[in-house]
């Protein structure tokens, strides 16, 4: 064998080895940090640590998007067909897709054909009592392990190749109303998540678990206890049932080593009489050291909330000039109706502008960003004042998107939407709802009927995708729907925006102008965030609607 031949063989072996490694590659922390460099994959709930739900894939363009057709449709076969809400964003790694079927079944699919490889079926405790659906929004991946929080408060690690359980940790008590709904976030060798349950008087927290063992590495109390900073913002024992839930996935800045999470409402939701004070860290975004869980900074959007304005929305990170200077920014479209820009290194408030009609505050303090409340705009008994935005907020759990290409921020919006708020007495009893009132439709007597909200008058309230300039908060364009929306937004490097809505349309807009480019009727409301990936050189766009997952690609 000549030296040349030997060398060729060596190169071939090496090349094969690299190829094999990439096929069976483990999803290392380094890959998660550099997710943008492998846009054919979608490695986490929001597509990357900056949570922009933006992809560099550009095969589908404004010109050819009209040629999209279904590559495959995967129908769920949930053990709980009557309570199915399919809100997942899939994770795709090298041609394998991982989804969660309600309530807690992980399924590995061939991302080209939609054919399943395996299913891991988790049987939640009958004690589970998630407030708002027996559902799960997705998994996290690290190396060859998938992580899922369950509606009965467990965190499980699953072998991504076989679907076999590796470990199962009971983290919180479902009897007390704790549940996991969101996809966890993996940072380094830890998997981070927090519990939902803001309507049950939980005491919220964020915790990190060792990916290898499931042992808890750190915990940050989102409702500070005695001796912890922020405890003084609670009255008496109210902190014990203070809420502060987590139901969406946080973000992470590797350079700052900070992880950012939006925090839910204080408990009881609609009656703040027994929790005087700002009620930290409810309705805040917290920045934690990813290694220790220590608080670096926090910013509270809605102090002493009585409108259920959970601030759980996705903190979107962007590096962009702010008033001429490069700055590490956070964009945050909040349920309370304001769009915020913060300095994510320090938590400094930079700007906050309403993106929908707001009448509970007259504005934000220009220095602190604290809302300036309007007297009399509060829940009452009997309900009296119409509050904008209504109980579901100007936006909610449906993901926004930021396109570095257009520089615009896209918000799934409930426009001209309001509620009457009712204040009731409430006593805490473990495991029972601890809400202290509720929200009522502005038009009394309307029956919401099966599966739908008819809270908005059809000629007034509507769902929309609103594109705003984050530098000014100005509305650049709006795509108006007839019904409300529960669909997230995805943008791509080709300036194509994908979203959907309650009417069952899945559609593509020109991200620059909002012009409709393509639409498909999926037969049921789109209640998920679209994502994109590529296998064998073919870009797919995938979205969950009704009880099916739809994967589109260009006609060949």
């Amino acid at each position: 064998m000549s030296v040349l031949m030997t060398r060729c063989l060596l190169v071939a072996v090496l090349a094969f080895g690299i190829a094999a490694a990439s096929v069976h590659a483990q999803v290392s922390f380094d890959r998660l940090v550099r997710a943008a460099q492998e846009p054919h994959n979608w490695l986490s709930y929001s597509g990357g640590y900056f949570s922009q739900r933006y992809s560099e894939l550009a095969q589908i363009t404004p010109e050819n998007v009209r040629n999209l057709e279904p590559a495959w449709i995967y129908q769920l076969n949930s053990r709980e067909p009557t309570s199915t809400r399919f809100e997942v964003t899939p994770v795709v790694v090298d041609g394998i897709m991982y989804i969660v079927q309600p309530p807690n079944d992980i399924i590995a699919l061939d991302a080209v054909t939609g054919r399943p490889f395996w299913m891991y079926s988790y049987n939640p405790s009958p004690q589970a009592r998630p407030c708002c659906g027996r559902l799960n929004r997705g998994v996290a991946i690290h190396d060859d392990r998938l992580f899922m929080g369950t509606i009965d408060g467990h965190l499980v690690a699953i072998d991504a190749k076989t679907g076999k359980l590796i470990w199962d940790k009971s983290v919180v008590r479902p009897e007390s109303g704790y549940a996991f709904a969101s996809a966890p976030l993996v940072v380094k060798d830890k998997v981070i998540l927090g519990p939902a349950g803001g309507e049950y008087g939980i005491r919220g927290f964020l915790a990190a678990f060792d990916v290898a063992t499931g042992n808890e590495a750190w915990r940050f109390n989102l409702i500070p206890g005695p001796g912890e900073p922020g405890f003084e913002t609670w009255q008496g024992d109210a902190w014990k049932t203070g809420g502060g839930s987590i139901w969406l996935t946080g973000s992470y800045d590797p350079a700052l080593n900070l992880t950012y999470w939006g925090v839910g409402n204080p408990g009881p939701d609609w009656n703040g009489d027994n929790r005087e004070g700002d009620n930290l860290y409810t309705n805040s975004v917290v920045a934690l050291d990813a290694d220790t869980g220590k608080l670096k900074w926090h910013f509270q959007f809605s102090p002493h909330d009585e409108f259920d304005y959970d601030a759980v929305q996705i903190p979107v990170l962007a590096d962009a000039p702010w008033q001429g200077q490069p700055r590490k920014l956070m964009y945050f479209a909040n349920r309370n109706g304001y769009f915020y820009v913060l300095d994510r290194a320090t938590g400094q408030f930079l700007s906050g502008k309403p993106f929908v009609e707001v009448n509970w505050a007259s504005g934000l303090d220009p220095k602190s960003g604290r809302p300036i409340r309007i007297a009399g705009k509060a829940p009452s008994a009997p309900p009296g004042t119409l509050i904008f935005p209504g109980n579901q907020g100007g936006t909610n759990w449906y993901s926004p998107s930021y396109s570095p290409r257009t520089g615009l921020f896209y918000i799934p919006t409930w426009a001209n939407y309001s509620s009457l708020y009712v204040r009731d007495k409430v006593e805490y009893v473990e495991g029972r709802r601890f809400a202290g009132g509720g929200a009522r439709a502005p038009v009394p007597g309307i029956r919401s009927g099966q599966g739908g909200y008819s809270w908005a008058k059809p000629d007034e309230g509507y769902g929309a995708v609103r594109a705003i300039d984050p530098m000014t908060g100005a509305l650049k364009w709006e795509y108006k729907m007839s019904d409300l929306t529960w669909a997230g937004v995805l943008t791509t490097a080709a300036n194509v925006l994908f979203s959907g809505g309650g009417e069952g349309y899945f559609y593509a807009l020109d991200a620059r102008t909002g012009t409709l480019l393509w639409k498909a009727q999926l037969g049921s409301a789109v209640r998920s965030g679209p994502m994109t990936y590529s296998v064998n050189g073919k870009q797919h766009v995938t979205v969950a609607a009704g009880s099916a997952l739809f994967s589109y690609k260009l006609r060949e």
Partner: protein
Amino acid sequence: MLAILIFAALAAVAQAQAPPASPPPPNGEQLYMENCADCHGPDGDAVADVDLGHGRFRRATTDPELIGIVLRGIPNSAMPPHNFSEAQAAAIVAFLRAKASRAAASAGDAANGRAIFTGKGNCVSCHRVDGEGSRIGPDLSEIGRLRHSTDIERAIVDPDFMVVPSNRFVRLVTRDGVTITGRLLNQDIFTVQLLDSKEQLRSIARADLRQFTFIEKSPMPSYTDKLSSREIGDLVSYLVSLQRGGGQ
């Protein structure tokens, strides 16, 4: 804090003067509104095929069965277990039973109400019951299950007070200048579906429309001057009795 102290002092005095009182009975309505209404709705009808305020349940008929479901939930469904005492669960069930019997009770003469519906009131010129009558207005075959008697009475006396979204009329003007009015059945971003004044189902692309207007007033006249209050009571009783598909 002062209030709490005073309350505590008063409670202590009360205890000293009287034999220990049994705790007040659980308030079923309050428990329902705090724990059940978010999913089931304030009227108990927000979950498909369940109407708690009208005695319409999917899986239970007897009180013990209902109490069991309230306490233990329904496995593998959206109905969770609750940490109520047996007495609290029973109070909720009692509240729902009372609500249902109130809804079923009627002071008027339903048979006479039916005669007014088809005769003097001429309601069938717009409304339909069990396949008889016009389709222009809402079908009332199960209105007793869908609406409370007070809402029905108000709709007869003051039809403009509230036209629910599912019953709203629209006026459309096409690009060709043709005006179409009718009851809006559905709409989305691209199309509008309605039943026009000739009882025809129409689906029209929004792109073909020049104008889309909701008709704010109800097309229905008030019956205050047309029927006596007794006749209105009879009519309400008849309408409340229309429970097709519901109940036990």
